């Protein structure tokens, strides 16, 4: 039997960037095949070529043994390829049924095609154990179910090969397990699944084969049963990496930040943070876990002075801020709060600025950088240059435009700016989102070094692994509320996962 998909020598170049170089890939029918690689390794480009978003500069594509030209997503669908995107492509105000039918309506009237589709869809749901109420509105469904709808959409279009791009990014661990069960069911029924991810855990959990990409090239094809996490990580990065974070137990000191009954509403008056109270001490890392969008962003922005709050108080050292008090980001900085924001491109950096300008963003009024009228550019340059070496930002060129740095180095630039001021409290959001393993290692070590120097660290991350490996205490947020606090040695994925899904532990 010919393989479901066979790619031969695919190359793709974007301007000066070689995104794929002579990539070959063979995916056997009925298997779950993982493609792993760091951000920017070329996984997404490769899949976009397979799905017809881009055309390869050279190379061939064979689907079920037949050589094809795939020029558009329609071609891909026609040849039985379905894709579940990282960000769902669903119309919020339509029902499940309407979303599934959208674009493949049959018959003269919408009603006729919907009636037609209903039967087929319910049949599909039964066959693959993908139960969803077909008449529910998308906006009323939780994220885990939306993913099912996306899979149903692909199946309805008669996909035999299903590509999932980073499917667990928005799921709780339990929802991810559900998804894996579905994928196994699909493969049992003869469907081929391609799973794109940067999480080693997922590869080990469900794939039968795995291909590793690095710098646009395919570096290995392996049977999952014959490899391990360490080997995969090494292949992804190109050198040995430490997957575990080495740290001693914490020795908390005096309280640095205390939050009492904090309430935050967004611009639409929707309550985002509800009656939250906690404190952070010097010498500890407090991790806040939760599925993305459960109030963590608003909490971070409030604590760093970006967003105002509607109730409660924030006490930082001797300074107590009540709701209604005038405060902003520069006040919090003056008090000694460093902030590595969740989204470096949207908030942490001005990507059109050069590195030395971004290295002073937020501290640009500092006397050290200014003379009476003009800024002291010689000092800015020297200061940035030495810090870049210290924080291993590559290339260490203060005059380089920030958008030209890789994701990991952009993040190091932000981390460098905030940590080098030696703040009393460091607030970090998603420190390693879209960052390569090498940089993750570096950033984690720096965060722990800050803790060991007696500073307080508040860490928000949707990567549970990151929370578990760094935090000394863990708080879980769900829908703006605190679900519970767990100390690091009692924490495990299952317990936190339940809290993340909003299920409180029974008072025992």
């Amino acid at each position, binding site marked *: 039997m010919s393989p479901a998909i066979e790619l031969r020598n695919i190359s793709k170049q*974007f*301007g*000066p*960037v*070689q*995104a794929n170089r002579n990539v070959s890939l063979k995916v056997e029918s009925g298997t779950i095949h993982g493609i792993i690689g760091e*951000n*920017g*390794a*070329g*996984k*997404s*480009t490769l899949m976009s070529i397979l799905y017809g978003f881009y055309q390869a500069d050279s190379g061939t594509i064979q689907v079920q043994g037949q050589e094809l030209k795939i020029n558009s997503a329609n071609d891909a669908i026609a040849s039985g390829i379905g894709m579940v995107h990282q960000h769902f492509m669903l119309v919020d105000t339509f029902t499940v049924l309407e979303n599934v039918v959208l674009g493949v309506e049959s018959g003269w009237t919408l009603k006729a095609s919907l009636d037609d589709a209903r039967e087929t869809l319910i049949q599909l749901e039964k066959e693959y154990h993908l139960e969803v109420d077909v008449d529910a509105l998308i906006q009323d469904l939780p994220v885990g179910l939306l993913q099912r709808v996306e899979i149903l959409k692909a199946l309805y279009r008669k996909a035999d090969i299903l590509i999932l791009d980073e499917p667990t990014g928005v799921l709780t661990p339990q929802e991810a397990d559900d998804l894996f069960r579905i994928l196994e069911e699909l493969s049992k029924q003869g469907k081929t699944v391609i799973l794109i991810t940067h999480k080693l855990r997922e590869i080990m959990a469900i794939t039968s084969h795995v291909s590793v990409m690095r*710098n*646009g090239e395919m570096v290995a094809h392996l049977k999952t049963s014959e490899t391990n996490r360490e080997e995969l990580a090494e292949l992804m990065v190109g050198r040995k990496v430490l997957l575990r974070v080495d740290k001693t137990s914490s020795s908390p000191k005096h309280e640095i930040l205390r939050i009492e009954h904090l309430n935050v509403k967004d611009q639409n008056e929707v309550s985002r943070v509800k009656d939250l109270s906690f404190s952070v001490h010097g010498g500890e890392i407090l991790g806040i876990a939760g599925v993305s969008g459960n109030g963590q962003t608003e909490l971070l922005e409030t604590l*760093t*002075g*970006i967003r105002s709050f509607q109730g409660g108080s924030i006490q930082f050292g001797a300074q107590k801020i009540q709701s209604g008090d005038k405060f*902003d*980001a*520069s*006040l*919090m*900085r003056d008090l000694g709060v460093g*902030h590595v*924001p969740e989204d470096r491109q*949207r*908030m*942490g*950096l*001005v*990507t*059109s*600025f050069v590195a030395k*300008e971004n290295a002073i*963003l*937020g501290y*640009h*009024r500092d006397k050290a*950088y*200014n003379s009476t*009228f*003009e*800024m002291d*550019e010689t000092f800015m340059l020297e200061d940035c240059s030495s810090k870049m070496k210290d924080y291993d930002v590559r*290339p260490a*060129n203060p*005059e*380089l*435009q920030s958008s*030209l*740095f*890789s*994701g990991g*180095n952009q993040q190091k630039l932000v981390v460098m700016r905030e940590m080098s001021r030696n703040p009393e409290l460091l607030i970090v959001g998603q420190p390693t989102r*879209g960052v390569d393993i090498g940089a993750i290692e570096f950033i984690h070590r720096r965060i722990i070094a800050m803790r060991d120097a007696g500073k307080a660290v508040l860490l928000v991350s949707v990567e549970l692994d990151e929370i578990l490996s760094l935090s000394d205490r863990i708080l879980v947020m769900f829908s703006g509320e605190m679900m519970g606090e767990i100390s690091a040695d009692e924490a495990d994925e299952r317990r936190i996962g339940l809290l993340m899904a909003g299920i409180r532990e029974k008072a025992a």
Partner: protein
Amino acid sequence: MNEKTVNLLLVTLITTVNLLLAFIISGFVIWSVGEDPWFALKTMLYGAFGYDEGIGYTLYYTTNFIFTGLAFAIAFHCRLFNIGAEGQAYIGGLGVGLICLWLEDLPFAVILPTAIAASALFGAVWGAIPGYLQAKRGSHVVITTIMFNFIASVLMVYLLVNILIKPGQMSPETREFGENGWLPQMHELFGWIGIQITPTPLNLSLFWAFISAFFVWRYIWHTRWGFEMRTVGANESAAIYAGINVDRNIIIAMSLAGALAGFVGINEIMGFNHRILLNFQFGYGFTGIAVSLIGRNHPFGILLASLLFGILYQGGAELAFETQTIDRHMVVLIQGLVILFAGALENLFRPQLQALVHSIFKSSSPVTAHG
């Protein structure tokens, strides 16, 4: 070759190619109405540079464009589209005129700084109000600045017809103010050192325009205030994150823009007309937008682009005067083509030229992969 030089080269190349294209098409148009394009070009260049009077007029127009170009550019770096230089220049001129009328018995050394301050202040207020409305009320600055052009226009008509008009005359103008309030013109300056040149409206304001351009450059790229303004313009979220007051920066940027536009009043009212009159600023404010865009919103580029438009204005007038088939409208058409190609279609050939430059200087700058 470092990245900066390559970029500068690329920008220069793109602008040159676009200008050439505009001129080639203008040439076809001129040819199609039965005139010789070469002759037209020669006439324009001669009109702009061929004799001292032409040069004087060219530079006099250039002065206005520098001010209005800067007025657009400084707001643009805060991502504000200032369409209001026209009105700001008009009101700035009102300020200058009022000072010159009021203080005309005082020495020139007192009047000059006061008049400059007044032009800046009047213009700044006219820019600050739309700035305030944008920052605090969310009224889009494009809409409000256009409205403020109209308001300035009718306000000036009202003042000149009903209040400031010199009694006993029909035309809505103030009386001419005393010579203490006259900014020396170039031919006078040259006369003092014994060189005779033909009188033109060109006056000391040109130097003030150079000084303004220099300060705008230093302000935008070398001060903490310029840094804040650029941050607000490039990424508002990052500005809030950095503790920068976005509203205040918007208002400041619009005030500075208004002040720069207001300096047109120095050139026009103090330097040439010596009275307040209607529509002395006519068209300079709008052309300033094109000047700034062609000059890449950089003061040095604006100096060059202002000179280009000075040439088009003065050389164009000469051309219309010299030939029968080419009239004022044809000159406007040429200006329009320049704006179209160098301003609106500036990225038409960018990919090709970029590839060309990259292939010549085998990109020495590091490029990272995007996922």
